[in-house]
């Protein structure tokens, strides 16, 4: 009796000794080992390693770093502290801002419309698996190409201007929104769809009576987010692809007139617009919920 208790005790203490992990200096490690902990550490190490590698392999072209930083700070001071319009009137700036806003609106509406039908084909729970896989592949491709490249590709066939800009922005938005919408459709309870199917509802009845009502708030949230992205993208497209709007003014002020003060004015106008849009979006979202 005593013997077996002793044996049990020694087995127990042996087990505990084996379970305790110690560092090289003999301190007891208190963290738990887990796959996710290891993955986090590995990811961090790889990212840090790649960053260090990046700084060693960059071609700096013997740049005068201190001089360039000083110059940038001086320019930034002029840009932000003394904004002044010389080439455009305040009314024209407002007008161009509105054009950029409208480019954002157009591409978001078109993108959302395409994405709604795309998502119905893409969502795993209501679509045929093969169609879903094909759409997912196409969408991944569309999203992987940067927006500016889409705009430039459309510019070849449609000419520079609003058509190329809207088509390019629409394309990328649709890719992004199809994924987002499909995910929110996939999250919904399959029981609802099954019940409607069982009671003889057609495909479109299921879409409008079950899918749309249950995922509309997610979809709207994604659409608003995308609109904000499209607005900033529309600025960038104006500058990089000559698509019009405030971005084009920015490009002209920077590259043709070398006028930092004009750039400063335009920048403040953009920042103000973005902040106002953010506030409006938050208000509308709160109302919808």
């Amino acid at each position, binding site marked *: 009796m005593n013997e077996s208790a002793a044996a049990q005790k020694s087995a127990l203490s042996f087990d505990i000794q084996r379970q305790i992990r110690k560092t090289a200096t003999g301190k007891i490690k208190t963290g738990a080992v887990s796959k996710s902990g290891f993955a986090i550490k590995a990811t961090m190490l790889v990212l840090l390693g790649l960053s260090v590698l990046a700084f060693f392999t960059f071609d700096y072209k013997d740049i005068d770093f201190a001089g360039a930083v000083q110059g940038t700070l001086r320019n930034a001071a002029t840009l932000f502290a003394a904004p002044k319009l010389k080439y455009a009137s305040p009314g024209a700036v407002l007008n161009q801002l509105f054009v950029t806003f*409208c480019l954002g609106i157009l591409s978001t509406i078109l993108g959302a419309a395409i994405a709604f039908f795309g998502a119905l084909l893409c969502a795993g729970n209501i679509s045929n698996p093969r169609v879903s896989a094909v759409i997912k592949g196409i969408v991944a491709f569309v999203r992987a190409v940067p927006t500016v490249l889409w705009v430039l590709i459309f510019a070849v066939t449609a000419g520079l201007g609003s*058509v190329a800009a809207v088509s390019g922005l629409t394309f990328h938005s649709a890719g992004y929104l199809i994924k987002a919408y499909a995910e929110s459709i996939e999250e919904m309870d399959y029981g609802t769809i099954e019940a409607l199917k069982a009671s003889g509802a057609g495909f479109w009845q299921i879409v409008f009576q079950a899918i749309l009502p249950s995922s509309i708030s997610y979809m709207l949230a994604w659409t608003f987010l995308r609109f904000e992205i499209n607005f900033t993208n529309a600025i960038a497209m104006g500058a990089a692809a000559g698509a019009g709007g405030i971005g084009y003014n920015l490009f002209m002020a920077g590259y043709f007139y070398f006028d930092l003060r004009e750039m400063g004015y335009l920048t403040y106008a953009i920042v103000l617009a973005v902040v106002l849009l953010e506030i409006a979006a938050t208000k509308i979202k709160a109302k919808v919920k």
Partner: protein
Amino acid sequence: MEKRRTNEILLFQKRKLVFTAAAAVVILLYGMASFVTEYDTLLGLSSFPKAFKWIIVNMVPNAKALERLPNILKKLTETALLSVAVTVCAAICAFFFALLGSKTTRVNPVLAGSVRVVAAFFRNVPDVVWAILLMFSFGQNVLTGFFAMFLTTFGLLTRTFIETIDEVSNDCVEALHAAGANYMQTVFQGILPSSISEVITWILFMIETNIRSSTLIGILTGTGIGYLFDLYYKRLDYPSASLVVMSIVILVILLETISGGIRKVIL
């Protein structure tokens, strides 16, 4: 029973009304926007099939384009490393900034408020402005893109990290304080471990985003893979330009797959 039925009918009527009103607003917005931007919907829609046809005919890499592959891959590697380096540096700075800005870990309220304003400023000034501004002094240099992306990434990540820290830290900060931990111990033993998986998810997402925006900034400032695309595009050398596009697509999809895998393990 009768009342319930009328209620149900009212619900459907209300739903129909809301949908109709929403559709009317959207159509109105669309009409106004296409008027302002002189956008022709028919032309726009017909540009899609035209563009596809053009892509299939012209954007096929040929032997001459394949000769340029080593150069393209070199620039692609540079762009990929640039995005990683920018995101990691910005994330490290943003994390410490977010500590000062978060409600639970701030040192004093005035500093926290100014951190939030600074972050909002860097987030909302478009990267195009930073790129042009830096271009004046740094010229066609990899550092132009580095700093332009650094500033916007820093602004965005500071805001997200503030939210993350606010979310995760309430309980653990209190417990650590009660146990007598000092500020640094609270941060490194409590906040960092509990927010790290969220932080890494955001870093991976920003690396992907930055690869796309580095293409744009490259076109504007004449650096990296964006410059290479612009060069071939303006020379009308579409086969080579398409090779650039495809290499970007493969890189982005590869990254998406890797970060998806990592996310699955850590979350």
